[in-house]
Each structure stands twice: as C-alpha cells, then as structure tokens.
C-alpha cells in the first residue's frame, strides 16, 4: 500500500477518548496527521468548507462519534453521501449504542463501518492496530489515487474552525 502521511480526522467531544486513540494510533507506527473536531457545528462547517474548496484533498479517513450532543450523526452522513465532493470519503463511526436498528440506519446512511467506541486502553489499542493493519495496509482507499497532500511528519493535533493550514494543495477528483 501507499506509504505516506495519512490525514485523519476525529470528530468527538471527549478529549480523553481522543487522546487515548491518538496515542494508540501513534504506537502502531502509523505516520499520520490528526485533525480534531470537537463539536457538531464545527463538523458541519468542516464538511461545508471541504465541499466548496475543490482544491483541498479529502482526508484518508474520518472517525466520527455518532453521539455528539449537538449533531445528528445520521443526518450528517446523509449530507456527506449526497455531496459528490465528499461521497467517497471513508468514515468509521463509533457508537456506544448497541441498538441493531440504529446501527442498520448508519449503514443505510452510508457509513463505511460502525464500531463500538473503545472504552478501555486495550480496546483503543486493538482498534488502532486494526485501523493501521486493515484500513491502511490492506485496503485501496480513494485517497490513494489523489495527489499526496501532506509532508507533515509524526502526530499533531489541531482544532478546526478552518481547514488545516499545514496542508499543501492537492487535487480532488
């Protein structure tokens, strides 16, 4: 698979959960740059900006907490999947709910996969290893076929109101 810095976005309001997952991902050896979005309204703005800026490359993967207090995750998913500029972005959603109907709705709305939100460090480690091994070493991703956009090394964190400014321009089909 393609070896380059991966652009990840986590949409979650829990700083501790984000930190645990971020550290777990770093421990896998994955070279990634992380954009963190805490609020539903920031997520909506992020996707609007990504949609309107055709020169900005899409991230490799978005990890979305479906239970943000100010966001209807299913509605956001539908919006993304109805937008030609965003339709291909891989999105893993995590949820604390074990409701079969809710999970089925996520898949119908266009989630790539739904996972249980990690609640322990061991869970987060397992998830991070799986994301690295399966998502980045086994799959072909849409972003593998777009111009690499990041020269950023290691891990970092960025609160988003605007698109990350560290990204050099790339091409989105």
């Amino acid at each position, binding site marked *: 698979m393609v070896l380059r810095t991966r652009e990840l976005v986590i949409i979650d309001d829990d700083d501790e959960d984000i930190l645990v997952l971020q550290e777990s991902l770093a421990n896998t050896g994955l070279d990634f740059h992380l954009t963190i979005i805490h609020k539903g309204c920031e997520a909506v703005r992020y996707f609007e900006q990504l949609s309107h800026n055709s020169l900005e490359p899409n991230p490799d993967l978005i990890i979305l907490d479906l239970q943000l207090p100010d966001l209807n995750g299913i509605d956001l998913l539908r919006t993304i999947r109805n937008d030609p500029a965003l339709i291909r972005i891989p999105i893993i959603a995590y*949820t604390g709910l074990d409701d*079969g109907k809710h*999970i*089925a709705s996520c898949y119908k709305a266009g989630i790539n996969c739904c996972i249980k939100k990690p609640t322990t460090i061991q869970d987060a480690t*397992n998830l991070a290893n799986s994301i690295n091994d*399966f*998502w980045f070493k086994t799959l072909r991703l*849409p972003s593998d076929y777009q111009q690499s956009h990041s020269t950023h090394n290691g891990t970092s964190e960025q609160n988003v109101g605007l698109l990350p400014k560290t990204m050099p321009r790339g091409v989105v089909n």
Partner: protein
Amino acid sequence: MSSKSIHVLMVEDDAEDVMLTKEALSSSKVSLDLQVVEDGAQAMAYLRQEPPYDNAPRPDMILLDLNLPKKNGREVLNEMREDTNLRGIPVIILTTSDQQEDVLKTYELGANCYITKPVGLEQFSKVVSSIDHFWFSIVKLPHYE
C-alpha cells in the same frame, strides 16, 4: 456480536479464490456461514430471494468481485444501493483490479471497502484473515430482525 452465525455471501467466479477464502475463514473465531454465487445475476436473485434462492438468508456482509459474468460487480453494487431493502448490507470489493476508475467508482457507488487481491496463496489468505479479524471482531455489523 451475537452468538448466531454471520451470513456472508461471496460473489466470485474463480473457484480457486473461493476455495482459498473458505480455507482462510475456516479458522475464524466467529461462526460463519459462507454462501457462494458465481455471477452478478445470481447475486441479485439471491439477495432478492428469487428462485432458486427463496429461502436464502439475508447476508450480513458481501464479498463482491468486480469482473463477473452476466452482471458485473459494479452493476450489482449499484442495484443494491438503489434498493432500500439491500442498501445497508456492507459490501467489500475483492477484485484483481487496482485501476483508479474501479476504486473511485465503487466507493462512489457505496462500497464499504475495496481490496485488490494479492498475488500468491499466502498473501491471499492473509488478506482474508484480515477481513475476518476487522469485520467480524471489530466492526458492528447491521442486524435486521
């Protein structure tokens, strides 16, 4: 994950790939029921429970090749995503193609992930085991009552 078997439909016309997949999944930690159809028309008949698949269980996940007789994988995916009853079934594309057009188009059509079959038996088995681990141990699959 519930204790009932996970139903997987493999849409694949290459007998060797089917055999290798069955072999790799035989060591799965979960109880799997793998059904195989050989072309896209059979796949749609299976999914819609049309004869001779009247009693076919709804798959929890589909492994879909792209280059298939009668109806190709893209057509199957497109028909599934336009059908409200089938839209939510996760589809993993497992194909020899690594062409940009195939990757981008199938994600656009709603593929959940895309894997290019590796060359070599050992690598192929490793990929299937990787699917097994991620999709059946980490992921929450949709279950319909």
